[in-house]
């Protein structure tokens, strides 16, 4: 017997004899190595004693091992209900390993067979041991993927029987949904039950999670999903899908009215095949054959645009894969089509027609046709293709023609840009003195700064590395396009430019961001605007800010924007915010491990306050969050 075995033996004896407490470290050593023991070397009763001692010393994992053996060796020794209670408790506290081990011991005996796991799952689902179910599902997920058929039925059965919305959310978050062939039907059932029960919030959450429309606010998600549902059933539009027809009133009133008015008008046009409001370039068959996107919103679309573009690329699209439907004067469609001329075709709406009017009236409307249910897998699609896209030397997109690139570069050189020098693309419509500090820092770091639409760029610095060609009144100039996509990073308060930069892999520091906060999935840092309540003379917390409805902020002339703010104003980011955000973005680009555990906690708190996506990689500047930590409530 080795020395360690002797010590282990001695520890075991002392524990069993209930002798004076072992030192904490000795006990720890014992319970950590308990798995090496032969379970049959001691009696079930002794296992139970060791379980109690272990729990008393808060060495739960080792203690539960003993309980498992006690249960396996003598099933009647411990009351079954007591064990179930313990299992559920352990699972609730996050002790999934222990919970799973114990519940399987109670129900199945065999710890490795998948069938046993399924059996345990069904057993505890039927008994309502919800925590156990979670534990089983989480631990056994990879195996479920292999044995999808039976497991899927059981999962869905659980949802149907219990109507557990939270469970459905969890399930979807774990990506189990995509493994289940008939999840849509089950989801609709769960949603319908939830609507009937008046649990609208939960319903929205389920739908939102289910469709992974994380970039949209709850209300919009709901409206959008309704509409997506409509589109999926375009052929049987007159009858309408059950969810919509049952709850049509929801769409017609309150926060959904804008969405509905646009959708109604579009539908009318589709059905009557009267495309009088659309430009002549649109072909009669486009609604059915080409995925298209239409928007008033911009920043929130990054996810969808990216997904659609990648999908098109993956499928080897040779013509437009997206069409954008834009209200009059909206720049997004122009921007995206300038940058992606091969793939996006803008469909401009004339200013007079009913559709134009409906679009103008809509506070925000985002729709996507053609991805449909496939959009459930959009995230996977992006994951699998984004590297291919962004790392490709020869981008598969025709960003600009070579002639255009040459012309853009020549123009920049004429304005002082030294070919090959690294640039920061700056487009912030703030007062010059707010930008000076960040610009000075960028220059100090060796960058040239290309100013686009920045007021008074000539007073930012006397450096010859400030490049500010004149802006064309007709839109984004060639030089600006070339400069944006070839810059090292972009500082902007402009949602459209941020989106374009994002699409081309240029890291963005987006300033003066108003809610709803955009979701990005690259190296983006946000500098949200702090909101000030003039009546109460105080700042709004992040949770209060996130709850504001600022959908109109991009419609500068919309009186609803001012009226709707109720004495709340957005305070501009400070020069220090911008400078520190810039430096932090540089750190983030150069060091993937740029944030510590404490930093991540801080971000999590902000995400929690704002109900912000935890999967989006765009986060507020950490230094910014720390400076205003008091707002994290």
């Amino acid at each position, binding site marked *: 017997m080795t020395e360690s075995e002797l010590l282990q033996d001695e520890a075991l004896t002392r524990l069993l004899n209930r002798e004076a407490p072992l030192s904490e470290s000795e006990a720890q050593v014992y319970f950590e190595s308990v798995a090496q023991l032969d379970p049959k070397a001691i009696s079930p009763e002794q296992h139970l004693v060791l379980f109690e001692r272990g729990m008393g010393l808060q060495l739960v994992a080792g203690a539960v091992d003993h309980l498992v053996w006690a249960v396996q060796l003598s099933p009647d020794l411990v009351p079954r209900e007591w064990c179930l209670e313990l299992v559920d408790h352990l699972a609730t506290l996050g002790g999934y390993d222990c919970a799973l081990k114990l519940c399987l011991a109670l129900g199945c005996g065999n710890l490795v067979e998948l069938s046993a796991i399924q059996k345990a799952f069904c057993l505890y689902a039927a008994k309502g041991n919800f925590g156990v179910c979670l534990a089983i599902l989480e631990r056994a997920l990879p195996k479920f993927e292999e044995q999808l058929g039976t497991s899927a039925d059981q999962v869905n059965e659980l949802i149907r029987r219990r109507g557990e919305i939270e469970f459905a959310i969890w399930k979807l978050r774990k990506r189990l949904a995509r493994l289940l062939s008939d999840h849509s039907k089950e989801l609709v059932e769960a949603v319908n039950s939830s609507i009937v029960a008046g649990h609208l919030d939960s319903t929205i959450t389920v739908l939102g999670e289910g469709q992974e429309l994380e970039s949209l606010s709850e209300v919009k998600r709901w409206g959008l999903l309704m509409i997506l549902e409509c589109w999926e059933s375009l052929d049987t539009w007159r009858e309408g899908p059950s969810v919509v027809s049952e709850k049509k009133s929801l769409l017609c009133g309150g926060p959904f009215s804008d969405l509905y008015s646009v959708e109604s008008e579009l539908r009318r046009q589709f059905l009557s095949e009267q495309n009088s409001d659309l430009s002549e370039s649109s072909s009669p068959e486009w609604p059915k054959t080409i995925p298209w996107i239409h928007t008033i919103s911009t920043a929130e679309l990054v996810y969808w645009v990216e997904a659609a573009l990648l999908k098109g690329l993956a499928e080897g699209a040779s013509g437009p894969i997206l069409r954008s439907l834009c209200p009059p004067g909206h720049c997004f469609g122009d921007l995206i089509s300038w940058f992606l001329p091969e793939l996006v075709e803008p469909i401009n709406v004339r200013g007079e027609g009913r559709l134009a009017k409906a679009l103008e009236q809509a506070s925000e409307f985002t729709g996507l046709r053609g991805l449909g249910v496939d959009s459930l897998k959009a995230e996977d699609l992006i994951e699998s293709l984004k590297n291919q896209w962004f790392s490709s030397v020869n981008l598969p997109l025709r960003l600009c023609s070579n002639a255009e690139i040459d012309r853009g570069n020549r123009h920049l050189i004429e304005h002082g840009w030294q070919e090959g020098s690294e640039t920061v693309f700056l487009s912030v419509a703030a007062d010059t003195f707010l930008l000076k500090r960040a610009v000075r820092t960028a220059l100090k770091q060796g960058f040239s700064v290309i100013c686009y639409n920045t007021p008074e760029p000539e007073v930012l610095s006397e450096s010859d590395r400030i490049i500010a060609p004149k802006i064309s009144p007709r839109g984004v100039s060639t030089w600006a396009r070339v400069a944006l996509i070839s810059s090292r990073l972009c500082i902007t308060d402009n949602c459209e430019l941020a989106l374009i930069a994002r699409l081309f892999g240029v890291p963005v520091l987006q300033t003066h961001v108003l809610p709803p906060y955009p979701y990005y999935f690259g190296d983006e840092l946000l500098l949200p605007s702090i909101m000030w309540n003039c009546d109460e003379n105080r700042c709004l917390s992040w949770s209060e800010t996130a709850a504001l409805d600022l959908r109109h902020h991009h419609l500068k002339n919309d009186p609803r924007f001012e009226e709707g703010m109720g004495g709340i104003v957005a305070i501009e980011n400070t020069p220090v915010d911008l400078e520190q955000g810039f430096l932090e973005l540089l750190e983030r680009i150069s060091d993937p491990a740029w944030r510590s555990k404490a930093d991540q906690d801080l971000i999590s708190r902000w995400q929690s306050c704002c109900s912000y996506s935890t999967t989006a990689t765009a986060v507020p500047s950490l230094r910014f969050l720390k400076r*205003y930590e008091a707002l994290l409530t």
Partner: protein
Amino acid sequence: MHQIRKISLDSQEAENLSEREFYSLFIDYNVGQHIPNTELWIDGRLCIKINSLGCAGYEVEPDLPVIGAFGSSSSYITPYELTSWPTEMNIEGYQVLNASLPGYDLPKTLGAYQRLRAQIKFEAVVVLMGNHNMCQSGCFSKISIEETSNTWMPIEQFRANHDEFFGPHPLAFCTMPTSLSPEILERGILEYLLRSESIEPQRFQLNTMPSIKVMSRFLKNMQRYNDFLREYCVETGAILVDLDDILGPKSYDEIGENFGDFVHFRPSLLKRIGSIVGERLGPHLNGLPKVSLQDP
């Protein structure tokens, strides 16, 4: 003996009044003056007293030389204690008549001086302008971008009004101190505000929107006035008390050290300011200003 107009409220009634309503109990905003011989009592305690000359505070002693103090809210008396930095000057052998009034702009302050000098022989006069001269926002209104940008008082008007304060007495002008430090224009005020929110009594109130754009214009205007005053005092021989230099924050962390907001001193500072002004004024009290105003 004057007939006293006595107003008695309980604290609940007083709390229910808006700021404007409260001041209206003893200020006639139609003419922009105190209502003479008014006393406001709250819960049986004398809160505000307006004397027979229409100035906040007690009656002047008939046989004691008077120093006149003119200004705005930052020079005004504190309720109940009826003290202010002018009354804390404590210059032996003199008494102070504090003719300040909240919301006074420069022309109104001058009007008060012209009205009172007909009734009182001032042995000295001290003037500390209120921030309303910077933006003419009027009483009880917050400083807005429009006010600070569009209604700047021209330097020539400053000069003309200041000239009018000269008389057969020493004259001191105080620069207008502010808690706004240039660093605020880099870091904003919210960082400080949120950091200090839980720290009483260091709590710092904002009397404007915390926008750097607004604060920048306000600070520039203050600096513009103070720069004018420094030059003006050299030019005219008036006594300069550079309160801005002495009391202004030396660092970002000191923003709220001496101030409860952008322009108003903390009550704990009144004695110190009184003493600073008294020390500057004292040596001049036995005669006319050493350099008199040149005739135009």
